């Protein structure tokens, strides 16, 4: 019974020199064992006894020591290379991943505190909203019901128009029809009509604008609009009526003296002029600058917007200081100027701003500025929507004194409707309006987002299972693969799925009628950092466990000691698990972040794919012809990515860095109090609030000087 032991001893002796690479040692041993089995069978078939067969086999095999040394020399290069890869994989990458995971976790915690402080800030410093009493918070869900249902029938009509009509323009037209003398309703109708113009026949479009222009025959804008429509249609036409369309457009152009409309470069000229005027040190300097430019013939909507913003802020500060007469004087003067110039400034993008301003002046709404509360909230809005926001605030708070006094002049309801779903809404940090914009988007995103996330998870799980099965097949015909390069290969495949699907969904969503432009991406920016990192972690975590199970099982089969990275491995897995748990909860509590998360995920994964592809290509170009090159190539197609989580978390560290850079940039532009900025709803709010504080301090200086001069005189 000692013969088999002799063969086993010989095999052990032959492979002993390769003990530095247990996988290779077992591989070589198995090959030689197969050789001995073949030879023993052949001798046995010739009638030799087992003992004789063993003797003949060992004799014909040659000197054992010489063969063993030959095997060591032949595999020396390969053992060294594989050892290096193994060392990097087991001793370096995992600890690095664990460190990055901990850093990301720390960053996630800071974001949680940021959100909580933002929530308390909003709740404590801003008035409650009648239609959406619950702002978003980590613990509260969105309001499920339709805000319109909370309005009275009359309010709802001014909110949505006549829903039985086929188009949005016609729904707005219903509001105007009820109050045909109301210019604001008319303006709302025209603005919606402009948006729907491509779907409107030229004849009908012209007829409607002519009908509208009959109410303001002195306003040249309607002629420009008709002219622009005809010219645009002519430029798209190659047929015989091209010339006729142009001529008809120019007829309206001449009628409206619309030269300004076609001189868009005036906007650039005004910017240059503003720059030439030098830096602004005081609010009145700002006003003077705008006034200097505004009085020039090249006035355009950009300058006008700045003028509006500066005068509104100045008026608000005057109100705040109790100098109402002065405020009325300032605002009234500027309003006259604005109204006067609004007839000559025709930039379609800002028609709505001009419209609201001119209607506000016509309706003699100047006393509104005395309403300190109103202006305080309106000033939170950005430059483009400051005054529109003031109006909308009135609408959402019907019991205000303003409405009691100007009940018949609550003309902005129609405007508000278009605001709610318009991209403009996304640019304002005003929480009440945002909440309603969010409501509209949630209806779609909430359902789709959850489906998408679950779908992506399921696809990746299936891929993981398939990989595990293929890995099992690989086990039967080859030895245990090393981890790093196969991981990168499989990682690339997964990222391919991760890139295509989110980008397709994001693109499709952006094209849909439910999208409000940049809303879904920009609005939830504050929550993206850890939502994204955690979403990735949720996906990867399950696969990591599957791969771990598979690798351990294979190692047991081959009687190899299970690779153990010790504490670093444990720390990395624990960190990722915690991130995944927190992330899952956040994703469920804030579904509006899903689309944006997928958008950023796509960007990250694209980088991941490219990086993996380059690495694999580089590796193959260097070693593809060698044995272990082919070995890894095969493994890369079939193994499971344990270290994907490390690269994922590494990607998660990118956004915090970018965000920090952005914050530094903003702080460079507008000095902010770091601790204070942490409590703001978003950076735009922080910027505006910083500007307010700056202007306020400037104004105090002005007032103190004026008081000093007054007392002196």
């Amino acid at each position, binding site marked *: 019974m000692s013969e088999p032991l002799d063969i086993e001893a010989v095999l052990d002796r*032959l492979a002993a020199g390769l003990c530095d690479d247990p996988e290779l040692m077992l591989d*070589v041993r*198995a*090959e*030689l064992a*197969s*050789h001995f*089995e*073949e*030879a023993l069978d052949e001798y046995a078939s010739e009638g030799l006894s087992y003992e004789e067969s063993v003797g003949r086999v060992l004799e*014909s*095999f*040659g*000197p*054992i020591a*010489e*063969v063993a040394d*030959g*095997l060591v*020399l*032949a*595999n020396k*290069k*390969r053992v060294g290379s594989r050892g290096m890869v193994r060392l990097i994989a087991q001793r370096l990458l995992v600890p690095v991943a664990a460190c990055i995971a901990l850093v990301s976790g720390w960053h996630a915690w800071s974001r949680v505190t940021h959100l909580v402080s933002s929530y308390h800030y909003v709740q404590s410093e801003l008035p409650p909203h009648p239609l959406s009493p619950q702002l978003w918070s980590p613990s509260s869900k969105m309001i499920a019901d339709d805000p319109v249902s909370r309005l009275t029938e009359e309010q709802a009509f001014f909110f949505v128009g006549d829903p039985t009509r086929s188009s949005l323009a016609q729904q707005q037209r219903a509001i105007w029809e009820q109050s045909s003398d109301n210019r604001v309703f008319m303006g709302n109708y025209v603005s919606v009509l402009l948006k729907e113009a491509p779907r409107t026949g030229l004849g009908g479009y012209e007829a409607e604008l002519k009908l509208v222009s009959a109410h303001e025959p002195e306003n040249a804008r309607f002629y420009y609009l008709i002219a622009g429509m005809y010219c645009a249609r002519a430029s798209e036409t190659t047929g015989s009526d091209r010339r006729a369309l142009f001529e008809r457009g120019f007829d309206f152009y001449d009628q409206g003296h619309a030269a300004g409309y076609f001189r868009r470069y005036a906007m650039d000229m005004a910017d240059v002029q503003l720059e030439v005027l030098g830096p602004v040190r005081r609010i009145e300097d700002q006003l003077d600058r705008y006034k200097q430019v505004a009085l020039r013939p090249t006035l355009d909507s950009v300058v006008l917007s700045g003028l509006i913003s500066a005068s509104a802020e100045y008026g608000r500060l005057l109100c705040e200081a109790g100098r109402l007469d002065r405020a009325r004087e300032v605002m009234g003067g500027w309003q006259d100027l604005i109204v006067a110039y609004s007839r000559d400034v025709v930039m379609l993008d800002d028609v709505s701003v001009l419209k609201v301003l001119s209607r506000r002046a016509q309706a003699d709404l100047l006393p509104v500025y005395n309403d300190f509360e109103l202006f305080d909230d309106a000033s939170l809005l950005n430059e483009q929507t400051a005054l529109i926001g003031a109006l909308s605030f009135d609408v959402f708070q019907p019991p205000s004194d303003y409405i009691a006094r100007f009940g018949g002049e609550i003309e902005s309801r129609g405007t508000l409707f278009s605001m709610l779903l318009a991209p403009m809404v996304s640019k304002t940090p005003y929480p009440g309006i945002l909440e309603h914009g969010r409501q509209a988007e949630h209806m779609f995103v909430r359902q789709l987002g959850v489906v998408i996330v679950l779908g992506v998870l399921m696809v990746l799980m299936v891929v993981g299972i398939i990989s595990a099965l293929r890995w099992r097949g690989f086990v039967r*015909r*080859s030895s245990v693969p090393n981890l790093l390069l196969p991981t990168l290969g499989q990682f690339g495949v997964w990222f391919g799925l991760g890139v295509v699907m989110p980008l397709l969904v994001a693109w499709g969503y952006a094209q849909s009628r439910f999208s409000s432009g940049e809303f879904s991406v920009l609005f939830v920016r504050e929550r993206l950092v850890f939502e994204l990192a955690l979403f990735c972690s949720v996906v990867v975590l399950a696969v990591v466990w599957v791969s771990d199970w598979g690798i351990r099982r294979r190692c047991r089969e081959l009687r190899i000691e299970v690779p153990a990275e010790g504490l670093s491995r444990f720390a990395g897995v624990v960190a990722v698990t915690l991130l995944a748990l927190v992330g899952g909860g956040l994703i469920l509590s804030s579904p509006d972040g899903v689309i944006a998360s997928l958008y950023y995920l796509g960007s990250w994964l694209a980088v991941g794919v490219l990086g993996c592809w380059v690495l694999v290509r580089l590796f193959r170009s260097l070693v*593809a*012809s*060698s*044995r*272990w*090159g*082919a070995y890894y190539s095969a493994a890369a197609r079939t193994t499971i990515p344990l270290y994907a989580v490390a690269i994922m978390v590494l990607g998660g560290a990118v956004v915090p860095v970018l965000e920090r850079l952005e914050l530094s940039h903003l702080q460079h532009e507008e000095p902010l109090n770091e601790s204070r900025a942490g409590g703001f709803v978003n950076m735009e709010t922080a910027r505006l609030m910083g500007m307010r504080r700056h202007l306020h301090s400037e104004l105090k200086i002005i007032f103190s000087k004026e008081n000093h001069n007054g007392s002196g005189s």
Partner: protein
Amino acid sequence: MGFDKDLVRSMAEPIVLHLVMERPMYGYEIIKLVNVRTDGAFEWKEGTLYPCLHRLEDAGLISSSWQTSDSGRRRKYYTISRKGMSQLDEKVAEWDSFSSAVKTLMGTRQSA
């Protein structure tokens, strides 16, 4: 007739490349085929084949894969690579040139 061991060792790698070029083979099969085709003239010790195979594989001239035969036995098959084929061509040309030179030299000596 036996050959000089150094001569056989120097030609071992081209011989293996040539054989695995014909079809994928495993180690024991290669040994048997060499012995059959040379009628045992090379007197190879079977064990010396494996370092040779591993050197070729490490150099990327051949590649290996485990396969299961009909009898259920697992064997490691070797296949020549593209690089191995070009290497074999070079070796064959070198051998032809060398043997031709040797023959020429020997013929000159005989005629002298």
